[in-house]
């Protein structure tokens, strides 16, 4: 059918040049004449131009900020290269695992993921319990010689048995956390990782630094080079695995920061009420209810512009 027939590449090229000039700004008088002449000269010219108009319409169908966020260039270029490489590996039969290094598409490989607000646990093949906190992703690789869990984002808590033959290792961008029969949480913070050890012992090895041994009750931050001891979290730190947040005389600002992990959108706390102390057990399955509870128990007002934009202020 004529309407669908391919158009000669030379004509497509010409039409593209015209569109390029139109995009560049207003055409000069002589350019406008030339364009009119070009259009009049051949039906194929007009057909090519029509197709480009349609294309332009398509491009305009995406809000610019979404397009910018989704198609942004810098990480994209790496992603493209990685995608090609991965395609090549699939072709020749590589494992694919080697190139799973650069975000953002790597989350697609994660064997276990949670959305914002979602908390769940899985039992791994060796009986280890893996709790995933809100917005988290891991990639589980068990082999004959090791049990390796790569934390891509978010936070996990592991409750594992000791297996002398197959060490359990959590790998983050900052380095490895090796368990020695234990219960511990690892959280990916972007600039390093945090480890909270509830039971047993673990060894933390920054990618380019010296290994550190942790004992029960310790908390530690580390990046690729260094480690830093943190104040211990206390037993309540892992209450999220029971879908609860527990506060014991906790400053409101700190609590709100924790809570914000379980809600999409913005949740802010006015500095004026940052220091109010809060005590309570809050079920995470309904964060709106938690906000309502805050209003009842503290002199605060929860101002919701929308569900996705909430500020906690002093009550007036």
């Amino acid at each position, binding site marked *: 059918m004529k309407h669908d027939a391919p158009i000669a590449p030379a004509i497509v090229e010409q039409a593209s040049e015209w569109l390029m000039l139109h995009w560049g700004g207003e055409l000069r008088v002589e350019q406008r004449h030339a364009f009119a002449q070009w259009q009049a000269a051949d039906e194929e010219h007009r057909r090519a131009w029509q197709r480009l108009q349609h294309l332009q319409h398509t491009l305009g169908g995406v809000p610019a900020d979404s*397009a910018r966020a989704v198609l942004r260039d810098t990480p994209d270029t790496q992603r493209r290269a990685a995608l090609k490489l991965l395609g090549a590996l699939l072709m020749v039969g590589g494992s694919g695992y080697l190139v799973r290094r650069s975000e953002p598409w790597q989350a697609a490989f994660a064997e276990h993921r949670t959305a914002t607000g979602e908390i769940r646990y899985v039992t791994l093949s060796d009986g280890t319990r893996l709790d995933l906190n809100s917005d988290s992703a891991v990639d589980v690789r068990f082999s004959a010689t090791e049990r390796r869990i790569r934390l891509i984002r978010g936070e996990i808590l592991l409750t594992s048995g000791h297996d002398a033959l197959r060490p359990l290792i959590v790998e983050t961008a900052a380095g490895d956390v090796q368990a020695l029969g234990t219960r511990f949480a690892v959280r990916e913070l972007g600039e390093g990782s945090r480890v909270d050890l509830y039971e047993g012992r673990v060894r933390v090895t920054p990618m380019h630094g010296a290994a550190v041994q942790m004992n029960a009750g310790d908390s530690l931050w580390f990046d690729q080079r260094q480690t830093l001891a943190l104040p211990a979290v206390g037993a309540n730190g892992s209450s999220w695995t029971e879908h609860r947040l527990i506060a014991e005389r906790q400053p409101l600002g700190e609590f709100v920061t924790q809570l914000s992990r379980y809600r999409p*959108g913005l949740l802010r706390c006015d500095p004026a009420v940052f220091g109010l102390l809060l005590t309570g057990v809050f079920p995470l399955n309904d964060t709106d209810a938690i906000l309502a509870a805050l209003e009842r128990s503290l002199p605060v007002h929860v101002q919701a512009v929308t569900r996705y934009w909430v500020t906690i202020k002093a009550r007036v």
Partner: protein
Amino acid sequence: MDTATDGQQQLHLLYRDHHGWLQGWLRKRLGDREHAADVAQDTFLRLLVSGRFPGDKESRSYLAQIARNLVIDQWRRLRIERAYLESIAHLPEPESPSLETRALILETLMQIDAMLDRMPDNVRRAFLLSQFEGLSYAQIAERLGVTISSVQKYMTRAIVACYQVVYEE
């Protein structure tokens, strides 16, 4: 024999001879039995829809090629979907696009992404800066450290690439 039944017959033979192999091939690479089964199924579906069947000798490499493209498309879709949803997550509810609008925008983003894939680096950069950052050609030239006439060449190439994705595939 008419073409429909002919196609079905060919598909049947291909399925019988290669489905198990393809599924194993995928399982080894994806490390996930269910995912492998899905992709293998989709591969044969794609084959049926396209109506293009490989000759005996290249059956397996042809099937593997389709499967590979399917997997890459899935990754691509996942990545784009996630980034898009993140980009609208902060929007107050009344401004949040409807599900239908989202689906349309996602489709278009997939298409534009395929267009970008056809562009060399500088061409892609110029195209993104012009279309989504609203920069003039002069500003783009400055940003990329090239002449304005180079930017114009890049933009023409970008438009041709877009055209090819929509009209020549």
